[in-house]
């Protein structure tokens, strides 16, 4: 178990270091976030639709699309010089490779979310500080869900010709449960509703995370071994 975590950590650290050096995907994600903010600000009629109603949906669209910009990177960077063979040759278990990639993706998406969230609070004037704790929990749970599935999907998509198109096509239906739950819970939190009201959604989200993280760990080997 210790070896598994060590190998996963090594792989994640390597990925984060590489992304930090090149920064291309990260910058794209931030630019995308800024664009979304600006466009929606000018696209809505402030008197007709309140910011609080619109913000949760826009927030999660931003998070998921920014995530997709980064997800293909994880296995994309293993294609140059066939570095993936290097990982497969090593004693690192396939589960360690998967967890390492998921971890690196979580760091990527988490960083984008950490920057996007305060910006949203600012521009949409939504009160996030009073609900910061539960909000971060919701964001974390939903992100783990779609990053876990997205990492698995990208391990397949990256080997196809139109990888950037294939990933969204494969991933979209799998985003419905976690993102719907996240949007609903975020909306309730922004509206200042008590957290107990969303317990059903929370159960759905946790159930999704457990089932799909386990399934992805189980099936990752089939996508990577020949």
């Amino acid at each position, binding site marked *: 178990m210790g070896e598994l975590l060590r190998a996963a950590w090594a792989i994640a650290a390597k990925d984060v270091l590489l992304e930090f050096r090149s920064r291309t995907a990260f910058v794209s994600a931030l630019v995308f976030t800024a664009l979304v903010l600006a466009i929606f600000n000018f696209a809505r009629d402030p008197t007709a639709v309140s910011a609080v109603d619109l913000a949760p949906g826009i927030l999660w669209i931003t998070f998921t699309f920014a995530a997709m910009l980064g997800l293909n990177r994880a296995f994309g960077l293993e294609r140059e010089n066939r570095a993936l063979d290097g990982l497969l040759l090593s004693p690192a278990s396939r589960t360690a490779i998967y967890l390492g990639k998921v971890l690196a993706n979580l760091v990527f998406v988490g960083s984008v979310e950490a920057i996007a969230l305060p910006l949203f609070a600012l521009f949409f004037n939504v009160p996030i500080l009073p609900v910061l704790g539960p909000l971060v929990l919701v964001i974390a749970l939903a992100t783990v869900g779609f990053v876990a*599935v997205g990492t698995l999907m990208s391990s397949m998509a990256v080997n196809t010709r139109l990888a950037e198109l294939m990933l969204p096509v494969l991933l979209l*239906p799998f985003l419905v449960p976690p993102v*719907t739950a996240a949007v609903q819970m975020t909306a309730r939190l922004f509206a200042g509703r008590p957290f107990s009201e969303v317990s059903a959604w929370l159960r759905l989200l946790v159930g999704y995370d457990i089932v799909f993280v386990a399934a992805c760990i189980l099936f990752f080997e089939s996508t990577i071994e020949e």
Partner: protein
Amino acid sequence: MTPIEAFERARRRSAVWIGVGLLLMAAVYVRALVFTPVEAVQGLAQKIFYIHVPSAWVAFLAFGILGVTSAVYLFLKDPRVDLFAASTAEVAMVFTTAVLVTGPIWGKPIWGTWWTWDARLTLTLFLWFVVLGYLVLRTAVHEPGQRARYSAVLGILGALLVPFIHVSVYLFRTMHPMPVVLRPGKPTLPGAMLATLLFSFAVFTLFFVALLWHRYALARLADARARAEAERADA
């Protein structure tokens, strides 16, 4: 009989059954339109129900079979299982599309709008996306072993997804009450309508089996021809 001859025969026979199925479907139409009473509230539009509901049943059945055969493939690694799964996916696509087309056709005269986020239709919509992803993935991967593995993983994950989407849609609707829609498939259908519905169920299931059998035969045929070709090139 060589394998190719056997699959050719299967193809012809299943084609016959497809023809039978189509004839029976026409019979369903006739019975539904002429011999079944018109529903009081919805009027003529309700007739689509006899196509829509059995299509949904078959679509979900096909999807379930896809999930199971995907798991079987990962276990056995038998390429024939992969061909069967792929055939099931294509047939599932046909019936899922039928549900998504007949639903709005039924809905427009009754609800006044082509689409509402009705629970069952929404679930079917996302099922459609999963099957679409499955078929697109298969066209994008060329090496047969890799294609089979990828498809199987997607098939299993898709099957696992269904209950979660169902719960998501259900929770969404209970928190956002929608206009009450007439529930299809209520057990208290008057006799003649129930009979037509059951008849339609039987016909659709038969049609599904014939289509699947035919598609699988075609897949095995293509595969056998490819193998024969490869062996000829070898020699």
